């Protein structure tokens, strides 16, 4: 089907955006900047995984995306808590 090729192309475009976000992760003057970049990468990767699950025609692969969507923000919360001065 042609639609699968469309999913693949969209996924590739999203991975390309990850490159841009990685630039902010490298450059970001402060730690919150880097954390934002990580957050963005998380979202993009989750979207990529869902798209690829459709593109490759394998349903079971989408579980990985769910785990990411659930867990990726825990790291962000830890960073935020660290910045707040918590976690003593």
């Amino acid at each position: 089907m042609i639609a699968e090729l469309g999913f693949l192309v969209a996924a590739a475009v999203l991975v390309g955006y990850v490159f841009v976000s990685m630039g902010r992760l490298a450059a970001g003057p402060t730690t919150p900047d880097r954390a934002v970049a990580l957050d963005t990468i998380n979202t993009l990767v989750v979207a990529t995984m869902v798209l690829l699950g459709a593109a490759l025609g394998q349903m079971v692969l989408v579980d990985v995306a769910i785990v990411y969507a659930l867990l990726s923000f825990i790291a962000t919360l830890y960073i935020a808590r660290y910045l707040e001065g918590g976690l003593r």
Partner: protein
Amino acid sequence: MKAFLYALLAIGAVFNGLGAFALIRFPDVYTRIHGATKCTTFGSIFSILAVVIYGFARGGGEGGTLAVHALLALFFLLITNPTGSHALARGAHRAGVRPVGAVVDRLEEKR
């Protein structure tokens, strides 16, 4: 049908791109959080919705599974993403990162 899917994917790609662009171009942490999170979340809604519609259209056990799992992923993304960015903005403010060009800081005054 196919055109509709392509439209959804295109919208998703464009908005995600705007988010990444915002991350690079905006001047300080708070605007970056705002731009990146909002745009990527919005873009991801469309990207994943395309998969959901594709799955329902395909039908059968595997198509339904695909659609439901994709919806689940979307649901979690929608819950966790704003929370993470909220906590991050709060943490950045507590850590003393100043907004660029800010004249007044209401959040600081209230405390």
